[in-house]
């Protein structure tokens, strides 16, 4: 009989630990993939100075495989570095526009849905504690569009 009590205690604990490990692993892996995807796109824009419409679709495709991302969850911005070196006054970027050397390009993505890890924590009522998949990358264009 005692053994039954033992299993009643131990098996749920093992299950809980296993569940936590799985949800954390899922969050960590997806978050890393999302950051890498965003970095890859930012790097391409840094070198070429342009983000084409097909690049954007490709990015959305990749992100949708990893989480719940809609078109409006991905924001692109661009602008210039101010004379004091700050990055204020960025405005929204339309895919296909050509940026010149020295301009700033930024991508920010945030998933609509809360991550599984956050949901299993059970504090979903508190919005400040929710964990979403997020990534951002801000780079400066290296490609000069002026012709020699």
């Amino acid at each position, binding site marked *: *009989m*005692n*053994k039954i*009590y*033992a*299993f009643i*205690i*131990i098996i749920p*604990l*093992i299950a809980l*630990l296993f569940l*936590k*490990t799985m949800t*954390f692993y899922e969050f*960590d892996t997806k*978050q*890393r993939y999302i*950051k890498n995807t965003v*970095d890859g796109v*930012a790097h391409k824009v*840094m070198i070429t100075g342009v983000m084409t419409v097909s690049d954007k679709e490709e990015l959305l495709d990749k992100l949708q495989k990893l989480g719940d991302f809609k078109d409006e969850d991905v924001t692109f911005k661009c602008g210039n*570095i101010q004379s*004091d*070196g*700050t*990055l204020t006054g960025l405005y929204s970027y339309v895919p296909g526009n050509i940026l010149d*050397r*020295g301009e*700033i390009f*930024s991508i920010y993505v945030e998933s609509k849905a809360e991550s599984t890890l956050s949901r299993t924590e059970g504090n979903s009522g508190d919005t400040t504690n929710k964990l979403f998949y997020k990534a*951002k*990358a*801000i*780079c*400066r264009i*290296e490609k*000069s569009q*002026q012709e*020699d």
Partner: protein
Amino acid sequence: MKKVSKKTRNNTIKRVAIAFQSESGGGIGIIFIGLSAILLAFVVFINIVDYSLFTYKRNAITKAMDYAVTAAVQQINKNQSVVGVANGFTEDTGKKLLEGVEIDVDMANRTFLNVFYANYKSYNLRINDNLLICATARRGEKLKYVIKSGTELILEGELENSLLVEGRINQAITQYWPSTEDNAQVYINGNLKTNMIENGTYLFAFINNIKITGLYSERQLNLSSFAGAKLER
């Protein structure tokens, strides 16, 4: 080796079996073993989470540093540089001249920090005092270099050969942070033939001893990156 008799072995097995099967001690034994295993798994799990958070932060910081250094290298000081098409080409060969193009180190420092923090912002990570920046520019056959941390000038001068930059940066690191250990040195040149710095406009950034916290443990790191100005006339 002493041979254990069959009888003694059977007795031992019996005694162990009694200890685990008796009504009084069996359940407790299993709980004890089970809980120890769970505790062990939990400790392993916590350590994995800790290291995983650390590597995620470290990767994000190194990526932010890459963006920052490529942004900062574009802060060319036009007043000190030879600007214009007439000055940008040699009259003899018509080739592009990439000498005399200098980086405004103070502006580069500010740009570096702004782009870095825009990419990676954390309330407990400040790199302003840990950042060392070295800018190089070609002056004829020589290489001019300026090494600064913030607005403080550490080293400045001209070198005969771009191979010597590595030594100057390491000298600046040990001079500015005297307690720095031997491993906080940068290696730019694998050997003479794989010299990564050419005689031109480059920017090096070195972050000394930044502390990155995982879940609970704190690890110290030195990071370095560099970028060429990719000049176009």
